């Protein structure tokens, strides 16, 4: 059969294909030719065929039938064959195929070959895709090569050793004696890979870490030589001598110096020298400075050095190169917890980065700004953050809005400012706020008694402008329901009172009920608000009419509400004023969260109306169910004797006294088989830091067999950027909760 075409011919042919289908056809034809050529066991052209196969593999076509051929090529004596064979092995094979074990013997022989290039190929392949069995067999050979004087092989052996250690960590001790004089090499390639090997060993084992600490003086010396050596053409990159090696050594120094006073002491001088002498006009200089800063922040450096590091980061922020700015913001985010004051000095630059065009930079700047907000700068920062909220991308709006709410809650200088800020967020990014913010806001508004008139007026005006943002509409309708009388009487002190009649207010609320933009939840809110106004307004007939219309609504929730309200007008009119009077001030830690009181208004009405069964609540007994440094969960078991004596109602309060918030907090519980569990929705999923607030959640446990209540709980949350999962058992419920 004719000689198979060369790789170049194949590539040229494929490039002439005008459509995907044509290309596929050509490749299939060639694959068939290659397959028959493989079957004929043709030694001379095998390497050419495998090269073509690798090209087709890169384009995405299946090439697994070439795996055995690669092995045959590796076993051949010719360098050309071996080269393509090893390349094919690296690209096509991995430890999931059984075929790869057949390579072990070939690699072993090649590791002892006379030509260094063949040895190099074998090391390279072993280092790329060696499985744990292969590594175990060949680790001895690699260790031998680590001690050779040939620098070409030594550097490859070092990286191969790193791969072996990653696959089979128990073999780490084997490489220890070979590392003794790795650092005294002159060749930079070997130095570089040796530092990588040492870094890997130190990261994996604390014993190795303490063993290698004695190398710190040597590393410092090498680094010093690199900086002071002047111009050396072979290692020069844009005027700096071997920056890659400098960066590697700095990283190893960081690992060695972390938590250790003596080593950190030894490094202080050289770090200060690098920080001050490195030229910053090109990217390489900045790469070294960046690594230096990270090292200074991680080891136990003296405070002068830390301030120097943060100032370098501040200078980075002013750099024109966006990569540098991005990197600076990332590092500042890592250090803001520990060196808060130093980072505060750069606050204005960080806030300017919010206006950058680059999306990644904006996100980092936003996170950092939230971390920097404190009682002193809250007003100024909030102005900037609100401006940012106006103009940022939709992906950011949710995070930004929740961040603003948190910050406002923690540091609000006055109630009016707080409410103004919330209003601003609701009107600009209303549809992006999280669901739990509505009950939180309602609670906040209820608690600021003196601001009721002002709040309801502003919310009413906002409603007139725009009814599409559901959270805003919900909060507004709730407030109008509660404080509608203040609105109509024009009692506002804080700003110019508006003239509004009862009919106008009812028009707005009815408009919400019929609008297509309102969700069912919003309609529920507005119906309840209209009902509440029946005790505050005088136009009873109109309200009665609206309520009775919705008695036949298709939406079951609305229908139920309307029917119950109707009943309130007809049979229980004497109870109506008491039921619908103003909400009392809600305290955060004692109740189930305002979400339930608002949504279940209908249900609570009916149980109270049912005068035969009065709920009796025994003295709540609270105890600490779970305590872990800074984070505690208190359980508060209520017991309702009626309507169902077997139900125990437990309220959990989660508080957090650490300095960082716990976000995405999810509480899960499991009970033994004889119990049944119902978890109601939590008040929020962010537990603020420093005991600023708590998350409450209600659990109802049905205990028909009156057994002792035990519960296994699982908490998942994100703390300081990393996800945490905790499991615990709670057994100390008081006897009256289950007897």
């Amino acid at each position: 059969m004719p000689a198979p075409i060369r790789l170049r011919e194949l590539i040229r042919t494929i490039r002439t294909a005008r459509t995907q289908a044509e290309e596929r056809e050509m490749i299939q034809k060639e694959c068939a030719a290659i397959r028959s050529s493989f079957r004929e066991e043709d030694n001379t052209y095998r390497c050419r065929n495998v090269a073509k196969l690798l090209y087709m593999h890169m384009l995405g076509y299946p090439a697994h039938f070439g795996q055995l051929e690669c092995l045959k090529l590796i076993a051949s004596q010719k360098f050309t064959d071996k080269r393509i064979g090893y390349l094919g092995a690296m690209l096509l094979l991995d430890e999931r195929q059984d075929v790869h074990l057949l390579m072990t013997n070939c690699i072993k022989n090649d590791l002892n070959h006379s030509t260094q290039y063949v040895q190099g190929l074998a090391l390279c392949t072993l280092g790329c895709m060696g499985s744990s069995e292969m590594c175990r067999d060949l680790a001895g050979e690699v260790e031998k090569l680590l001690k050779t004087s040939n620098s070409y092989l030594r550097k490859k052996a070092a990286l191969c050793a790193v791969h072996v250690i990653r696959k089979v960590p128990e073999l780490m001790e084997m490489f220890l004696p070979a590392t003794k004089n790795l650092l005294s090499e002159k060749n930079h390639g070997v130095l570089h890979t040796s530092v990588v090997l040492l870094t890997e060993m130190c990261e994996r084992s604390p014993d190795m870490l303490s063993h290698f600490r004695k190398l710190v003086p040597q590393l410092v010396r090498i680094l010093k030589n690199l900086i002071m050596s002047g111009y050396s053409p072979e290692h020069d990159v844009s005027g700096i001598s071997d920056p890659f090696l400098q960066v590697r050594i700095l990283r190893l120094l960081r690992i060695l110096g972390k938590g250790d006073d003596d080593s950190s002491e030894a490094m202080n001088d050289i770090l200060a020298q690098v920080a001050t002498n490195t030229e910053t006009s090109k990217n390489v200089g900045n790469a070294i400075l960046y690594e230096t800063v990270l090292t200074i922040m991680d080891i136990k450096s003296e405070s002068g050095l830390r301030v120097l590091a943060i100032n370098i980061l501040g200078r980075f922020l002013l750099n024109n190169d966006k990569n540098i700015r991005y990197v600076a913001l990332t590092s500042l985010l890592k250090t803001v917890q520990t060196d808060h004051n130093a980072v505060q000095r750069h606050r204005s630059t960080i806030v300017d980065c919010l206006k950058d065009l680059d999306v990644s930079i904006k996100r980092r700047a936003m996170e950092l700004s939230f971390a920097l907000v404190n009682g002193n700068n809250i007003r100024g920062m909030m102005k900037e953050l609100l401006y940012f909220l106006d103009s940022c991308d939709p992906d950011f709006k949710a995070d930004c809005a929740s961040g603003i709410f948190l910050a406002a809650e923690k540091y609000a200088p006055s109630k009016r400012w707080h409410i103004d800020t919330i209003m601003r967020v609701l009107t600009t990014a209303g549809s992006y706020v999280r669901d739990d913010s509505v009950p939180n806001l309602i609670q906040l508004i209820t608690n600021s008694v003196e601001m009721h008139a002002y709040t309801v007026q502003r919310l009413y005006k906002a409603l007139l402008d725009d009814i599409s943002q559901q959270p805003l509409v919900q909060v507004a309708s709730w407030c109008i329901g509660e404080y509608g009388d203040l609105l109509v009487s024009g009692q506002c002190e804080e700003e110019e009172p508006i003239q509004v009649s009862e009919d106008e207010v009812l028009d707005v609320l009815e408009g919400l009920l019929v609008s297509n933009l309102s969700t069912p939840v919003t309609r529920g809110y507005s119906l309840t608000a209209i009902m509440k106004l029946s005790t505050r307004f005088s136009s009873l007939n109109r309200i009665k009419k609206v309520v009775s219309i919705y008695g036949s609504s298709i939406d079951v929730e609305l229908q139920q509400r309307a029917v119950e309200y109707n009943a309130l007008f007809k049979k229980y009119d004497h109870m109506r004023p008491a039921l619908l009077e103003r909400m009392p001030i809600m305290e955060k830690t004692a109740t189930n969260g305002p979400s339930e009181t608002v949504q279940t208004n209908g249900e609570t009405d009916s149980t109270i109306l049912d005068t035969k069964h009065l709920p009796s609540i025994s003295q709540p007994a609270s105890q600490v169910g779970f305590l872990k440094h800074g984070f505690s969960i208190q359980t508060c078991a209520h017991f309702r004797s009626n309507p169902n004596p077997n139900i125990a109602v437990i309220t959990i309060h989660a508080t957090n006294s650490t300095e960082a918030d716990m976000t995405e907090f999810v509480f899960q519980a499991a009970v033994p088989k004889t119990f049944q569990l119902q978890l109601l929705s939590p008040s929020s999923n962010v537990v603020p830091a420093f005991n600023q607030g708590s998350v409450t959640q209600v659990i109802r446990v049905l205990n028909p067999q009156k057994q002792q209540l035990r519960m296994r709980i699982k908490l998942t949350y994100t703390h300081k950027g990393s996800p945490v999962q905790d499991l615990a058992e709670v057994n100390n419920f008081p006897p009256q909760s289950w007897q």
Partner: protein
Amino acid sequence: MIKAILIFNNHGKPRLSKFYEHYTEDTEQQIIRETFHLVSKRDENICNFLEGGLLIGGSENKLIYRHYATLYFVFCVDSSESELGILDLIQVFVETLDKCFENVCELDLIFHMDKVHNILAEMVMGGMVLETNMSEIITQAEAHNKMEKSESEEQVSVGFLASALDRKQRRCIVSV
């Protein structure tokens, strides 16, 4: 550790793909497509780092890329690598290719894919940086090529010898 090195052109056609972690063939192609999708959306004056796509490890891995004329050079790395250092590494890689191929262009990468792999193998091994000295890398790559050439010349000369002997034999037979 470097998880993958990808080179593709402005239309997403792969010119080189080397993975240092195990993925199936389908996943590899999907990763190339996903990376192209993420990188091609980026504006020219935006920073060169972005979070990795979902297939390649999500937000733990970063994509560091550089755009030269018609080619994107993308290195997917995890958090143990310095981002600015990798940017410099890409620059060194491209300059090395330039020296090896004399004013390298996309066609050189297309037609000499195996040579590009060999140069890369001298720089990055098992996901870790092996050698960053340009002259050292070029010397090694040239030594490899010389070995290959000498082998193929041997083959040609052996074949020549064989065919010369063959002709002599025939002349002998004819003369006889």
